[in-house]
Structure formats: structure tokens, C-alpha cells
């Protein structure tokens, strides 16, 4: 009896997921369109666009760039994720004061987020491609090792690490299935292949920066600094677990 009700509940959730995943009605593509405009908008003290920004594949080359991030950038001598790199380009190429962009890092009901829109636009240019892990540079190696360590690091009033919830196959919180990110493979590929995503519950296109911020909120940890190396390290680790997984973005999720 209880098992039958359980199965019904899970079927209902599956049906809902299928219903919202129709790309023709995915509002995440509005963010892609806004991002395309922002990319070509002259801004900053230098009154130039972002079109010469090098996301790793050469200035202005967007196809496949997201699939190879985070990666090492020689001009900055740092490993960066998509958002760190975009902020770098705004500051260096446009000479833009990014305080306002950073304030609107996560969009809300009354304002859009330039970062969310730009990430949606750029990530979409890798849709249909596969994540390609960048791990040849020593700084990329360090980033990956640090990301793995952070993933398993227990702290805070709950004593949680990321692995507490995402360290085993087939676990759930309440009825929510938990992907296992402690090993490379399908769970990580399916998850990472769908970020950035349009979150129906939040009416916003969200990026991995927001997802990890939200995880730390649920773990009762302090809010992590936006575009910090710790978040990039965790993202790099997740990409490593998802390497070879196909990117289909923006996706749409609960």
C-alpha cells in the first residue's frame, strides 16, 4: 500500500519533469537572447563590446568555449570559470566597474542578471558538445585537487561535506533523488550537462555559481564569495566527474 503510493508519487514527479523540459517553452532562452545583446553592447570607460574577450578558444570565439571551462588563462596567470573570466574581460577590456554587475550576480523578480544572461548565451554555444576536462597546466591540476578536497571537506554546524549527500548511488533527500558526484560517470554527466538551467521554482536562469551557493546555504555554511577560487575549484572537480558528458543548455529544471 505505502509502496504503491510511493511509486505513484515518483511517477508524478517524473511526469512533471517531462512536462517542463519542452525546449520550445523554456524561458531560459530569453536569457540566451539577452546575453547575446549584452555581449555586443559597448560599455565601460573604454566604450567597447565584449566581442574581443578570449574565453580560451581565441578572442571572440564562443563555439565550444564553455565545454573547456574552467581552464588556465595565461594573460591572467589563473584558472578561471566562465563567470570569473567574464568579469575579467569586463574589467580589462571594457574598463567597467563591475560592482553593479556583481550586485546583480543572481537575478531576482525586479531585475535581470547580466552574468546569468551572458553565461546562458555563451554556454548555449557549446550545446551538443561534450565537456573536455582541462588538466595539463600545473594550476589546473592544483584547482582540481583543491576541488576534490573541498568536495569531501566536512565542516559547519551540520558536519556536512558535499559527499554527505552526493557520495553514494541511489540516495534521496525526502523524495528528491541525489546524484552521486564522488565518482566519474553518468550522474555527474547528466547533471553538469544541464547547467546553466532555467529553475521553474525561481523563475530564473541559474548558473553553477548559484547552485553551489545554494548547496552551501542548505549545508548551513556561510554564503560563499561570488566568483571565488573555491567555487571554481568545485566546478572544475564536477567537470572532471562529468568529462565526456554532453552539454544541452539551457536546460529546464524544477
Amino acid at each position, binding site marked *: 500500500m505505502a509502496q504503491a503510493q510511493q511509486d505513484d508519487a515518483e511517477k508524478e514527479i517524473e511526469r512533471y519533469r517531462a512536462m517542463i523540459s519542452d525546449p520550445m517553452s523554456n524561458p531560459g532562452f530569453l536569457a540566451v537572447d539577452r546575453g547575446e545583446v549584452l555581449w555586443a553592447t559597448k560599455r565601460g570607460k573604454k566604450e567597447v563590446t565584449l566581442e574581443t574577450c578570449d574565453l580560451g578558444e581565441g578572442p571572440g570565439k564562443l563555439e565550444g568555449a564553455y565545454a573547456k571551462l574552467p581552464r588556465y588563462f595565461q594573460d591572467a596567470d589563473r584558472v578561471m570559470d566562465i563567470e570569473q573570466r567574464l568579469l575579467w574581460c569586463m574589467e580589462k577590456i571594457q574598463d567597467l566597474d563591475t560592482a553593479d554587475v556583481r550586485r546583480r550576480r543572481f537575478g531576482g523578480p525586479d531585475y535581470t542578471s547580466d552574468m546569468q544572461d551572458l553565461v546562458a548565451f555563451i554556454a548555449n554555444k557549446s550545446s551538443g558538445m561534450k565537456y573536455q576536462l582541462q588538466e595539463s597546466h600545473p594550476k589546473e591540476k592544483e584547482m582540481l585537487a583543491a576541488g576534490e578536497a573541498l568536495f*569531501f571537506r*566536512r565542516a559547519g554546524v551540520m558536519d556536512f561535506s558535499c559527499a554527505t549527500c552526493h*557520495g553514494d548511488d541511489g540516495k534521496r533527500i525526502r523524495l528528491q533523488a541525489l546524484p552521486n558526484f564522488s565518482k566519474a560517470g553518468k550522474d555527474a554527466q547528466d547533471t553538469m550537462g544541464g547547467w546553466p538551467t532555467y529553475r521553474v521554482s525561481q523563475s530564473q536562469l541559474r548558473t553553477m555559481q548559484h547552485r553551489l551557493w545554494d548547496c552551501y546555504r542548505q549545508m548551513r555554511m556561510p554564503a560563499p564569495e561570488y566568483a571565488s577560487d573555491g567555487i571554481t575549484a568545485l566546478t572544475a572537480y564536477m567537470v572532471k566527474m562529468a568529462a565526456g558528458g554532453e552539454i544541452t543548455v539551457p536546460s529546464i529544471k524544477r
Partner: protein
Amino acid sequence: MKTLFIASSLAASLIVLSGAAHAQQAAPTKVDPAVVDKYVQSMWAKAPDPWKTVPVQDETQRICTETRNNPSQADFTKIMEREKASVVFPADGKVIGDWKAGERVANTGTGGQFTDGPNTPRGGNCYACHQMAPKELSYGTLGPSLQNYGKDRKFDPAEARNAYAKIYNAQGVFPCSQMPRFGLHKFLSEQQMKDAVAYLFDPESPVNK
């Protein structure tokens, strides 16, 4: 001492089992703790008080992290003794409160998040990880099922006391347990922990129906 020995060997065999469950995980990559700390700082060095110190690990968190929750036998014993010693029982010795209030503790998943206010109700969120009353279908599977918890233990008062200690500090019972140390971290009040025990041990509680 003998009890401790039995508990330790039981735990050791459980460790072997849990190690097997993680067999697909790659061996940990070696990394300088100072490097990891640099990344931790990048996320939280600017956190406001009283959040600032939250990411700092205590000795138990550090060992459980370093060993991926498989501490050496020596550390296992050290953690168990240290964490067990932290448990403060109610002054009057009564560990069973009100099961209805305990049901709220088990169902409440709010409180303590950086988006919560100081008056947001706090709960133990037991259902996030445990199956409890059979009527509640929305339960998690990170922890074992607690259905019929009190009934299965014949409502033994000594077992109720053990349950209180486990909620207060799970690592005093099983070092590097995934369960939060609700009492040690003062996340739940004494009354809330007593109510949670009542939810497990009251014969009238739906957990035992």
C-alpha cells in the same frame, strides 16, 4: 571497556562495509592542506561574524575529512571517547518529551541557513534522511529507517537514553557518522531533542504504529 571493545569491532566491520560501498571512488588526490585552506579562505575570509569561524574544522571534522570517514582504530576510539564526553543529559534525567512536538522537529527543515532570519523555526529535518512514520511517504534514504524504533527496542528506557545521546552527538556512538551533532553544535534545544526522542519512543507516536 568490554562494551567499548565490542562496539569498536562492530564499527570496524561496518567500516569495511561502507568502504565497499565507495569502491568506485578513485583514491584521494594528495594535496597540501595549506593549499586547500587558501581555497577555503577564498570563499569565506570575508564572511561576517558570527559566520566567519563556521568553516573552521574541529579535530573530529578534520580527521573524518582526511580519512574519508574511515578513521584509524586509534582515532576511532579517540573520537568516540571525546564526542561521547560532550553529551549533556537533561538535569532531571528525563529524555522523553512530547511526541507531537517531536513530529514537528522531524518535519521542519528550516533554520540556520544564511537566508533565514534569527526567528526562523529550527528543526532536526529527520525526514530528509530517515523513514519514520509509515504514513509519511516523503522521506529520505541517507540514513537508516527508524520505523518502529521504540517498539523494536521494547520501549526500553536505557535505549531512549541512547537515542538522546545519539541525537546530541552521533559521533560519540559511531565516529565519522554522517549525522549532524545536533546537541554539540547547539542546533537543537534540549527540549527539541527530548521531543524527537518521544517521537521515536512514545508508544502513541505514529513511528511505532
